[in-house]
């Protein structure tokens, strides 16, 4: 088994409404923040040792290629449970 972490972010230029809302909250607490982007993290454990298909999962389902980018990293087994 291998475990992976996928980080999904909106592409630059696509309006990140949650990011703006979070930035306003940080502003309200007195923090000076230039920019906030909010994304998603998906962790998964795959039964096979290949680790193949994660990129395809992102392109087909986990991310919307029109508006999002993704990065895949392998993480220690058991971390995604």
């Amino acid at each position: 088994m291998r475990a992976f972490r996928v980080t999904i972010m909106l592409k630059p230029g696509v309006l990140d409404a949650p990011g703006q809302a979070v930035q306003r909250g940080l502003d309200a607490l007195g923090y000076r923040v230039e920019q906030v982007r909010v994304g998603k993290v998906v962790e998964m454990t795959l039964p096979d040792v290949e680790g193949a298909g994660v990129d395809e999962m992102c392109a087909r389902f986990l991310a919307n290629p029109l508006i999002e980018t993704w990065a895949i990293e392998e993480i220690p087994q058991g971390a995604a449970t």
Partner: protein
Amino acid sequence: MTWGVVFFPGSNCDRDCVHVLRSVVGQHVEEVWHEDRSLDGIDALVLPGGFSYGDYLRSGAIAATAPVMSAVRELAARGAPVLGICNGFQILAEAGLLSGTLLPNVSLRFRCHPAWVRVESDRTPFTAGLRHGTVLRMPVAHGEGAYFATPAEVAALEAAGRVVFRYCDSLGRVTPQANPNGSVAGIAGVASDAGNVVGLMPHPERASEALLGSTDGRRLFESVVGALVGAG
């Protein structure tokens, strides 16, 4: 003709659509469960609004993988009228049956109020009975309705007459103030390449009876009946 209305877990406009089609427009309606794999006998289909699967991952993304969607693709490929309303629009976009996607509203707020849209194309079965430029009053109710597509895709949609509805004021003027969510080019609804698959954010089923303040939405359904019965 027989209409189908698809029920997904989290749909909440399903009964409204069935009611309007059955009791107001006088059609035979079949309720379709999201796990059904056949749409045999269905002449036209509605994917209703709501919050399928709690909007998890992205609005409409998980519903787009439902077993029924293979049959929806086949029905669409056969040229049958398919209408996605609000979450139904998001599902059709996620399924790749319509171009673009729907982003959170620019205002960061859930917008729920009457809106006006202008009919921009009559080459869909849902607008075939309406004149280009007709202004319709229908409510919007969504948090993620900002239509987004790349500039090249928007240009292609415009050139092909696939922008079906555009937000406008009560006089039909397309203005930034009339755009409730920040949709690119004020786009409220689009069609597939062949024109038979249409998605829109406003709710025609909530504007189909005088008691509810507008009967404009009914014209979309009646347009299909006129187009199909007229042709058949």
